[in-house]
């Protein structure tokens, strides 16, 4: 991301305390203009708190939040050019869809233009024919669109989305993910999206901030976060992984020789902060491993197949390294490629791509 881009939201050393409990421990991050930015983490990690601080529903205990360079702490929510799509949508039940969408425009004093603009936004979310319905007469997905339309109607500088898809079923959810992404591109509004679903975050975001226990764990593009998790939490939280405890015996040609136990060794790219004798964790993505029945690669590890688990698109194979750890290997359920399925009990070799394994500092 080039630094020349304008910063939409700048969070500087923000701390949030509730009495003795610290929900946010000094977070700093910048969100660029026109970006689809995701706050990702398990429940209670502080992501919603941060979102509500940006919206103006929580005050900032320490630090500051800037919106296009302007400090917004003293602005009440109704004076911030930032809108929220609430998790439960919070559609006003006594108003029609159109009235809901017109509401912010009326509150801003744009009465004359309200209806035209409201219809325009309803068209964007393809709900024009439901304008006169009450929210209760709509399906969950339609309510979701109304909430989106209502928040977009006043053309906010930043749109905040608090787990907006969590109430939808799997299929609808996938469709909405793509549509949200489209709408974001079309309108050019900065989206800040909160979710606990890592797959959703990876699918939609330009950049992701992974949070845990009130702290920022890693910030980066989806591929960076997936391929180069900075620590154990991120590696474990994003995608599936084989997390192994290893000790580093020596270095060979810039690669660390990791001892897995039972005499098994793996050569992994060295990382700063890891020296000889360190006990560290190793993350190996299961889709980056494959099995063979002959030792093609001298680094391949001998193992025995424990079981195969069929999960539709994939087949997961669990293997046991003699006197060492277990590995999970994922292969596409496809006739193409060289992936083979071995019966339980077969003797096999575990092979990995070059960058399959990563050392984690903490």
């Amino acid at each position, binding site marked *: 991301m080039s630094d020349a881009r304008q910063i939409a939201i700048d969070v500087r050393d923000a701390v949030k305390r509730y009495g003795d409990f610290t929900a946010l421990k000094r977070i700093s991050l910048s969100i660029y203009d026109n970006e689809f930015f995701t706050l990702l983490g398990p429940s209670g990690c502080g992501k919603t708190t941060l979102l509500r601080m940006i919206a103006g529903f929580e005050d900032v205990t320490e630090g500051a939040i800037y919106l296009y360079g302007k400090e917004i702490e003293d602005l009440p929510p*109704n004076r911030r050019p930032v*809108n929220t799509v609430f998790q439960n949508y919070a559609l006003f039940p006594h108003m029609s869809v159109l009235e809901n969408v017109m509401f*912010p425009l009326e509150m801003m004093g744009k009465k004359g233009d309200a209806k035209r603009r409201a219809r325009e936004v309803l068209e964007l979310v393809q709900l024009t024919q439901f304008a006169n319905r009450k929210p209760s007469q709509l399906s969950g997905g339609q309510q979701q669109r109304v909430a989106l339309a209502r928040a977009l109607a006043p053309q906010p500088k930043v749109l905040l989305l608090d787990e907006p898809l969590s109430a939808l079923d799997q299929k609808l959810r996938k469709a909405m993910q793509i549509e949200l992404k489209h709408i974001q591109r079309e309108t050019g509004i900065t989206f800040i999206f909160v979710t606990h679903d890592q797959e959703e975050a990876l699918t939609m975001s330009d950049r992701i901030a992974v949070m845990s226990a009130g702290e920022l764990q890693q910030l980066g593009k989806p591929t960076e976060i997936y391929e180069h998790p900075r620590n154990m939490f991120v590696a474990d939280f994003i995608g599936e992984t084989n997390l192994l405890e290893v000790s580093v015996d020596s270095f060979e040609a810039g690669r660390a020789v990791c001892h897995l136990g039972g005499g098994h060794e793996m050569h992994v790219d060295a990382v700063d902060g890891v020296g000889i004798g360190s006990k560290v964790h190793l993350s190996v993505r299961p889709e980056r491993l494959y099995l063979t029945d002959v030792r093609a690669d001298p680094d391949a590890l001998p193992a025995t197949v424990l079981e195969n688990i069929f999960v539709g698109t994939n087949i997961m194979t669990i293997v046991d390294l003699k006197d060492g750890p277990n590995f999970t290997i994922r292969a596409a359920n496809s006739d193409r490629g060289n992936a083979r399925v071995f019966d339980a009990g077969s003797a096999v070799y575990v092979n990995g791509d070059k960058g399959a394994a990563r050392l984690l500092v903490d």
Partner: protein
Amino acid sequence: MTAKTDVRNYPGFIAITILCLVILYAPLLVVTAYSFNASASITIWEGLSVRWYIDVFTGPESAKFKSAAMNSFSIALMAATTATIIATCAATAMVRGGKFRGRTLSFGLISLPLMVPEIVTAVATLIFFNAIGFTRGYTTILAAHIAFCIPFAYLPISARMQGIEGTYEQAAQDLYATRAQAFRYILLPLMMPGIISGFLLAFIISLDDFIITNFVKGAGIETLPTAIFGSVKQGIKPNIMAISTMLLGVSVVMVTISYFVSKKDNTQ
């Protein structure tokens, strides 16, 4: 499910329930029935007639009943309206005002009229008006009624407000409404069933009160219950049964409206 497999059902409970309803309704139904008795004696049934209803409006005591009814209804209307406004404000502070010191105390004060026995409230109010040298009459009745109507209006209103999610006002504020606008356009319309229900209950409670009114009314002014009580002291007369039936009807109708209004869920 048969009786044998159902662990919930106890034989005989249905009979007791029916007995319970009979006990609750029999006296009311009997008085209603006898209010249509043509006879001047309350003991003998002489056939159906609306004679005593006509008597209430045109008979020798009609002037007394008319003024008592005027007092009762005007006091009930004013007391219920005032109490409802006060209760709506209080409920907003209690339910939408966050946690604060004195919240439990405030709730205690609001429900004080429910906890203190009515006769004690009656005595205390009488003594209070006496101590500050206030002449008893219409105003003292109204003031006392406003006070004891507040908790009856408060309970349905606050119950309703607790059922309305806080995100509605937050969404409104997020969408550029001030707090006052969020209250006016979002919270108030959503609370309306609770407010109507609270008003109706306060109205009935005021209309029905005898004990407190009897203490604070002073001489020369009557409400319907005090007038009825005065008459009954000399024995139950048929016109009293007619007027009681009408009052009973008003209560039942208003409670029924209140029930259906509060059932109406406008948050869906």
